[in-house]
């Protein structure tokens, strides 16, 4: 099956004099997990911002969906409705809103009812609110009791790991076909990282595709079907984890030229079980 969910064609993004994304052509298939790696500043987050159309790209195309939509004319909020959701490198929750409300906001594009419905609050509107809350609870239960127990707490009171989880739960609220995760394992210890990997596997099993930016190589190795390596906005390697990590260009990007050709691994705890 050659179905493609997301595709960028020769994508270029210039900011003033800086080329953040250079002739980038990548694709993601449905239900695939693709990891994007690369040193800091290689344009990975910019790629996400472009996919969400937060900036308008200088040239190239971004196509999403089956049948494919050209995202050039689609505003950010409609991209979410089309089926792409994201998390942020720096975690951008709605701090004063509760855990529940954060997830409910994530579901915004799937809920009906505007001003009038809110004010009149007929039986249909109330039923929808109830259903929405039930679904929010289901979503939160992906992470066990951790977030459910904090259902009515403001998001700003959560621990770091829980905040990352909540951000993912919020993104899942829109039932995306493609989930963009920006460094979901950042700042996590090995146990939390393992749990995060389990969570992501579970999410994948619901049918969604995942494009994930990560630095933690255990994470990447254990999850990704395919890896794309970027440096200075350009794709320098693509393929399986093994292929990419031993690619000379990738090694050079991480370690600088003149480094020895040992494979790239990061400080991962020695006795981690591979895979699930």
């Amino acid at each position: 099956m050659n179905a493609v969910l997301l595709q960028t064609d020769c994508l270029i993004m210039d900011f003033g004099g800086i080329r953040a994304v250079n002739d980038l052509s990548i694709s993601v298939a449905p239900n695939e997990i693709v990891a994007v790696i690369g040193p800091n500043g290689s344009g990975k987050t910019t790629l996400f911002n472009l996919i969400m159309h937060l900036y308008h790209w200088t040239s190239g195309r971004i196509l999403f969906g089956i049948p494919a939509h050209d995202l050039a004319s689609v505003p950010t909020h409609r991209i979410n409705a089309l089926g792409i959701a994201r998390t942020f490198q720096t975690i951008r929750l709605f701090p004063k809103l509760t855990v529940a409300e954060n997830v409910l906001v994530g579901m915004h594009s799937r809920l009906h009812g505007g001003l009038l419905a809110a004010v009149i609050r007929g039986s249909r509107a109330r039923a929808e609110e109830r259903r929405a809350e039930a679904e929010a609870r289901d979503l939160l239960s992906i992470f066990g009791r951790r977030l459910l127990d904090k259902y009515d707490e403001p998001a700003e009171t959560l621990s770091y790991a829980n905040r990352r989880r909540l951000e993912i739960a919020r993104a899942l609220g829109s039932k995306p076909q493609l989930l963009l995760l920006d460094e979901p394992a950042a700042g996590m210890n090995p146990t939390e990282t393992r749990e995060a990997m389990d969570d992501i596997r579970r999410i994948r099993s619901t049918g969604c595709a995942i494009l994930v930016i990560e630095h933690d190589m255990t994470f990447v190795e254990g999850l990704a079907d395919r890896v794309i390596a970027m440096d200075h906005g350009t794709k320098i390697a693509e393929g399986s984890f093994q292929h990419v990590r031993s690619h000379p260009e990738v090694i050079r990007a991480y370690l600088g030229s003149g480094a020895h050709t040992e494979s790239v691994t990061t400080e991962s705890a020695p006795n981690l079980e591979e895979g699930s």
Partner: protein
Amino acid sequence: MREKDISRLQTALFPSRRWGSGLLVAALLLALYAIVILGLRIERPSLFVLYLGATASLILAYQRLPVVSRQIARDFRDNAGLAAVILTVLLVLYPIVVRDDPYLIHVAALSAIFAVMALGLNITLGFAGLLDIGFAVYFGAGAYTSAQLAIHFGVGFWLGAVLGGFVAAAFGFVVAWPALRVHDHYLGLVTLGYGLMMNLLARNLKFLTNGTDGVIDIPPPAIGSHSFTEPLNILSLSMPFQTNFYYLASATALVGALVSYRLLNSKLGRAWEAIREDETAARCSGIDTRGLKILAFSTGAFFGGIGGALYAHMIGFISPDSFTFLESITILVMVVVGGAGNILGVVAGAIALVILPERLREFEHLRLLIFGLALVVLMINRPQGIFPRTRTRRGPRPGIESIPLEPSADRASPA
């Protein structure tokens, strides 16, 4: 005092828990009622200042003891129905209680009108986080629309007020649409300019507004044959005519509060708050931020228009001097000081900021200065206002109907 102690105290005083908290709620409401009326009655300025000091310390104490306030909040939540009934009764009885002084009824009606407008700005500023310091434009738009329609086209108040609301909403739309194209930061100055410009236009466009002479002889509303300028008969008591307006305004304010409450706890309200908290994240979550911001503006403006129409028909006379920057800022201070986003706080702010200038007339010329100081001090120390926004709990805590857990997830639970 710990929570357990207070609960125990309550249970000791009132053997049945349910009755106990209900009685507490009733007692508190009555006490508040008495305090407000007392404040209105005090004649001598020195006593009044004392009164202000006392109430201020009460409020401070309430804020400083979160245990007490949380308990009280819980009691109110549990007895929400009872509280609503008592409150309505108290409000209805108010004119009867003060019927010897029609001025007090007038002041209360005015407070209710400003409460409606403060609720409007609360939507724009408190919910969506958009700074609008030209609110008087909507106030004026509603007033002029309703007044001119009544005078020149014989449109009844009831229709005129609604139309006034929509015209005001249009004014809100017109300024929001371009101003929100880029940065919310510009809104402040743009709305300031808007307010000044509209005031200028109102002064000069005689054919529309009669210029600085203003519009006079605005017909009062009427229900059937009963005009609002006639005394009202309740239970064989003849109430001064201001009572009509008081009931009308209070009812409108109550409706406004209810509408605000419903908006807050809906998909729309959440979206507005999301926009306020983090606009980019809101956009990526599917929220049409630009459209909803404009909607927030227009909705707030609508409230302002309704308030304006009420004002026009109550006072009977309007001019550009009724809708100046001072009014805009007064409403802003009501919202900010009362507690942006908090429906009750904003209403309390409105009441306070109508009554205080009336009682402290000698300091009228210092009003703006005091506002300025209050704003700066408040922003530095307590930006959320005197009554900050509290989050509503969404029903029972998910305990019993939880989903069966996988053992592994449960085992490794971090903080």
